[in-house]
């Protein structure tokens, strides 16, 4: 991990530990010493389908962070049933792929995922869940969620 990546992650961690926004739980001992992998708890907001439920997000940072997006997925025993979340924990969210910008942060990703949970109308996994989970790469950022061909 580059020096710049490390410094930025330390700043983010420090900020999250001192003033984490409602619904985001950060364990003091969570990131390993090289800061490469973090686990963060998110709590379903009041008045939504996931009210009070706690899920765990796993962030994995590459050496190019924040210029390249972190790999973010749900881990643990309870994966939220949601039309944009596969049962293996992979999340279909544009800011984790093409819409990532280096000004986004761990906190803004957590908040986006919380708001995605909050706006769900129905608790179910995506329709192609079975196929996807069987065939996808272990790393969700290797999945290309949108597909295009150049003009042929």
């Amino acid at each position, binding site marked *: 991990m580059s020096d710049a990546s490390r410094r930025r992650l330390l700043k983010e961690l420090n900020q999250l530990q001192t003033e984490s926004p409602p619904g985001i739980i950060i364990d003091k001992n969570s990131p390993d010493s090289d800061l490469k992998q973090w686990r963060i708890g998110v709590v379903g907001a009041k008045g939504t389908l996931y009210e009070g439920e706690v899920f765990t997000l796993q962030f994995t940072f590459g050496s*190019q962070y924040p210029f390249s997006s972190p790999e973010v997925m749900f881990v643990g025993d309870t994966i939220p049933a949601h039309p944009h979340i596969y049962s293996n924990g992979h999340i279909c969210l544009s800011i984790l792929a093409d819409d990532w910008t*280096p000004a986004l942060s761990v906190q803004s990703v957590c908040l986006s995922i919380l708001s995605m949970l909050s706006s769900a109308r129905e608790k179910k996994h995506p329709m192609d869940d079975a196929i996807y989970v069987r065939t996808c790469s272990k790393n969700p950022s290797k999945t290309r969620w949108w597909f*295009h061909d150049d003009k042929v």
Partner: protein
Amino acid sequence: MDEVTIVVLDKKKNVRKNLSLKVGNEEKIDDLLQNVGKLTAIPKDELEVLFCGKMLGRATKIRDLQLTPATQLTLLRPEVCSSQKPENPESSTTVNSSFYVFCKKCDSVKRAKLRVYCENCQGTSILVKNEPQNWADVLKTKRIRVECSSETCVQEIYANFRFKCVDCNEICAALTHARGNWQKSECCICSDENILVIDLGCNHLTCLECFKLYLEENLENFNFKLKPPHGFTITCPYTDCNRVVQDVHHFYLMGKSKYQEYQKRATEKLILQSDEGVTCPNPDCEKCNERDCVCHKTDDLTRNTIEATTRKCPNCQCSTERNGGCSHIHCTNCGYDWCFKCVKEWTENCQWDHWF
């Protein structure tokens, strides 16, 4: 001590004299006038110094003018001595500002000095009638009027502005988005407070190093979008900020060779978007300039397969294959967001009902 060229325009006697004079950096304009007075027998109070389109104050320090041996200072002795009292000898003129350029000779970002010339004779013996107020005033022509001391120039004439690298004097394109971080704000990427930042006009500051890395990351997948009249450009790294880099010279921050790569890929993309070219799998093929080259042929079988397996982007008609993932298509050709199911613009309803 540096030697500078001094042109004395004596309008009273209608003579012009060229002098070469050594001036110390710590001297003031007043000292210079005294020395010139000794050489020309013109009382120093009758002389005015024209530089950068301004009349210089007597207390202006020579060092602040960033003179080089190529600089020419004009000393003017008006026909009628101005009725006003000679200017307060304590007043000094600022000609220094914080401008930044990409200097191709130094191959890096440099501080720059702004110089002004007569658009007609290119001379520096001019006075601007009004100070430039914004970037457009200096970047566009015919915005700032000047009075030129040259006999050949007419009264109604305009200024030409140039930015020069302070280190090597090379004329450079100004980086209009680069500025000093005078508020000591944090970079929106690394949160450090660096001295030099890029601000696209939205006050979201990115330090130079982060902006360079941001550009390089985007060059890799060519995420530059066509935004007329700026060409292929990029948005502010701040989330959801739509401000764009308005002058492609900023892409020189990546260095000359990556800038060339940017130009090449932007050109290719423009040709593809305007439907005037084909993507050739074999660009070195000599026959490719001929119409009957195999690269240009699409047989029926290929065409049928493409038609059967793709849908066209409703905005740019680009054939698009969905080989997995959700129905939300973000067209990499034109940037349109559409629904593969509806073949229409992606809507809130598609978001929930046509996900897969």
